[in-house]
């Protein structure tokens, strides 16, 4: 088990956003977290990456409790999050953005190797190497955000709404890239509103509703589930 959330709750001030979430992610999996707006998907991500402190429960990574570990130390351990809305640094060039991804690392030679790998996986970034992040198209920015995260050599990649605001063709492309990254050995936890795409690509998935997990299963099972179909896939 690479990641385990045990009864995690989290509050924003007085408002409880997560009511005891428990989930697991096995090494090598793609796990999707689907749910409506405000269900607590992004908050779950923040709990895992350490951006928000927990108010209860525990996050375990690689069998160690990291509930109180600082966010930057979680990056070093191999948990990296791609922010919602991509969060590309607009004034930095593509190359500088990628270099920021390796911020927590000191092994220069290996960083250069990884940069090569990112350019092989995402050749578009090589073409745009010297261009400012803010001038890229939405799809390119998403690729950059993913490439930047890969530069930290993640063991667990957290993707927050990678399809947000992208055209259907680009979404297809982004999900193919995600699958390729997974094939190369990175475990992926994916938050999505685009349930169709997420469920058809994920090995397993959880359905989140108002801060609680209401259903789980393999991607295929949930795709065929009538309740899920009705609520998230727009099929009656």
């Amino acid at each position: 088990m690479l990641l385990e959330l045990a009864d995690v709750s989290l509050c924003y001030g007085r408002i409880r956003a997560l009511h005891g979430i428990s989930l697991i992610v096995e090494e090598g999996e793609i796990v999707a977290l689907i749910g409506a707006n405000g269900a607590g998907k992004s908050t779950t991500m923040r709990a895992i990456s350490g951006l928000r402190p927990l108010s209860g429960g525990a996050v375990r990574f690689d069998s160690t409790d990291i509930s109180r570990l600082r966010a930057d130390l979680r990056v070093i351990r191999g948990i990296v999050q791609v922010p919602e809305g991509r969060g590309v640094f607009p004034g930095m060039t593509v190359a500088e953005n990628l270099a920021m991804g390796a911020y927590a690392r000191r092994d220069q030679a290996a960083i250069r190797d990884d940069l090569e790998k990112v350019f092989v996986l995402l050749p578009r970034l090589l073409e745009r190497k010297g261009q400012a992040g803010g001038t890229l198209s939405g799809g390119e920015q998403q690729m950059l955000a993913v490439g930047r995260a890969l530069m930290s050599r993640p063991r667990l990649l957290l993707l927050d709404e990678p399809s947000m605001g992208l055209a259907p063709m680009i979404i297809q492309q982004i999900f193919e890239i995600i699958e390729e990254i997974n094939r190369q050995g990175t475990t992926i936890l994916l938050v999505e509103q685009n349930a169709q795409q997420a469920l058809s690509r994920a090995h397993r998935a959880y359905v989140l509703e108002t801060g609680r997990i209401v259903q789980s299963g393999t991607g295929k099972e949930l795709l065929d589930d009538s309740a899920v179909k009705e609520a998230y896939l727009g099929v009656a």
Partner: protein
Amino acid sequence: MIDQKTAMPRRTWRNRNGNGSPFRGRWARLPRSARWASLLGVALLAYLLPYVGSIPGIGPQIVTEGIDWPSALFNISYFVLLALGLNVVVGYAGLLDLGYVGFFAVGAYSVALFTSPDSILNTGWSWLAAVPVAIALTLVSGVILGWPTLRLRGDYLAIVTLGFAEIIRNTANGAEFMRGDRGFGGIPHPPGSLGDNSPIFGVRDATPYYWLGLTIIVVVIIGVRNLEHSRVGRSWLAIREDQEAAEMMGVRTVKYKLWAFAIGAAIGGFGGVMFAGEQGFLNSATFQLLFSILVLAGVVMGGSGNIPGAILGGALVSYVPDRLRGVEIAGTDAFQFRMLIFGFMIIVVMVFRPQGLLPSRRRAAELADRAKEATA
């Protein structure tokens, strides 16, 4: 949904020489030695500025009339210093600080408290002995302001910093040991004497003070430049451009924001220390809110996040009002209109060059990005 960003023509912000402006491209291609030589030349020219009035023709146009030229230059020097310090906080780390005068005040008052015969501390130190203590105190005050405000952003942070400056000013006004508007007299000047035993730093001529200020500026520029290109600078840049993404990359945002506050404060403290040493007297009337606003206006107008921009902006906000002194417009001293003229100037710059007179190319790109987001 159609992706508008893909459909839009690509902005070609790096089309000329692959870098913001044609000048910057040419500059970057110069060999290192040539760049150093020209910077040295600029520094040398800056040291010669007190004699600019003797250049026939343009000289008299440049020098100030209502205030002696060396004093005006000294004013410029501490404004430039403050602009450089504020540039670290606002320009690099992107933290809007409206109370920067507070640090200037802490620096100046620390010197006054340790040196002036009016001080209840009665230590009577020399100016030089008080300098490290004053800088240390401003650094600490930077951390004290920074610590509780770390979670705040944008407008909220601005309001708290504004409050900080007001606390300092009110303390200066109200607390007995700060002596209010009676102030502190007899603050010693910097040390050193000439061959005939007359002091280098006297009361008649401000030129040596200007040179001292300039020297501190050069040191600060070198320090700040090195920081900018270090891991610290990269962290600031990431925090400014997208704090959340920076955090996700493993940047310790709390730590680096504190660094920005502390370093910015210390540089502001240097300004205060110089000011106290030159004036020999200071009271609570010196540290008005307007001062913070002026320095901030200088940084933004000059080009936030860019050292040459901050220098130009800081120099302008000090020079322009001083230059207007003693010039008659319709029977009135133009100095009376300084805020009007000045405000107009700022508006013109902001309309035609919102990124500042000498912008940093990153800042320009961020601005374009934000404009794009706003219209999307």
